[in-house]
């Protein structure tokens, strides 16, 4: 059983227990509880007041904290997967192209040649280090707001600036990269992002024209190649 499944099972148990606890707390009249009454829990006997106070703490503080921690695993770690990106239909063209063995885009070449064996989207679209990853997550929240509220138009456009450091983290220092005179000539400009790697190495994803609804490629690019989704 992988970690994601373990988290899912634990979070489900916590949520179900939290729902039961919250219902009991909502139906409890705390002012009418009598300290003299007691409840036996098998191994221990508590006064009803103590029992319902503990239940309120568990249902309104402890279980919510546990549920948030567990569910945020999906928000922070689960979104590294290509399947997570595929959940938003506007990302389908990139994922379809990524999985297409006949495509020669940068993303497809990195996937089919196993240069990035898994989590290809995150591999290129998150900068190294904590600050970079937090920035990527902040950008992800912005995307989430816009997608769920419908404030976007197709084809989507990359608003930011692709940092060449995402390429350098694998390519810098390699013989294939360093031995090229063309790389040496623009090394400083690549490092400062004055020149983009894609200037010479071609499109990373399908063009905006291909991703525009009604284009000849649109239907093919919108196929769900990763299985059934509940987002459409």
């Amino acid at each position: 059983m992988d970690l994601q499944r373990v988290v899912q099972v634990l979070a489900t148990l916590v949520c179900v227990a939290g729902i039961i606890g919250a219902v009991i707390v909502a139906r409890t009249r705390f002012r009418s509880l009598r300290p003299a009454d007691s409840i036996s829990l098998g191994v221990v006997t508590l006064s009803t007041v103590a029992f319902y106070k503990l239940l309120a703490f568990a249902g309104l503080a402890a279980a919510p904290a546990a549920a948030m921690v567990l569910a945020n695993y999906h928000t922070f770690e689960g979104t590294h997967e290509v399947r997570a990106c595929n959940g938003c239909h506007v990302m389908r063209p990139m994922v379809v192209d990524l999985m297409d063995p006949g495509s020669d885009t940068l993303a497809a070449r990195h996937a089919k040649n196993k240069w990035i064996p898994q989590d290809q989207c995150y591999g290129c679209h998150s900068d190294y280090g904590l600050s970079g990853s937090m920035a990527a997550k902040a950008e992800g929240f912005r995307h989430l707001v816009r997608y769920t509220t419908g404030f976007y138009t197709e084809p989507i456009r990359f608003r930011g600036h692709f940092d060449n450091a995402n390429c350098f983290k694998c390519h810098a220092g390699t013989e294939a990269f360093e031995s090229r005179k063309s790389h040496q000539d623009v090394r400083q400009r690549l490092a400062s992002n004055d020149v983009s790697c894609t200037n010479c190495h071609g499109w990373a994803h399908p063009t905006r024209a291909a991703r525009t609804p009604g284009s000849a490629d649109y239907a093919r690019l919108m196929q769900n190649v990763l299985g059934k989704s509940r987002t459409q």
Partner: protein
Amino acid sequence: MRELRSEAWGALLAFAITLAFNLWPRNPYLMGAFTFVAQPLFVLAAASYLWKVAVTLRG
């Protein structure tokens, strides 16, 4: 101890959203509901509960 009905119903709604998101974690709408509705609800319910506990302890 004061009544905790509104806090409990708020937490209940948040648990239901969290449960749905946990079962379908790649659904962006459920992720949005968890991030922008359930988590604030959890925080508000817990803050209100702790406030009532503090008031009860002081009183």
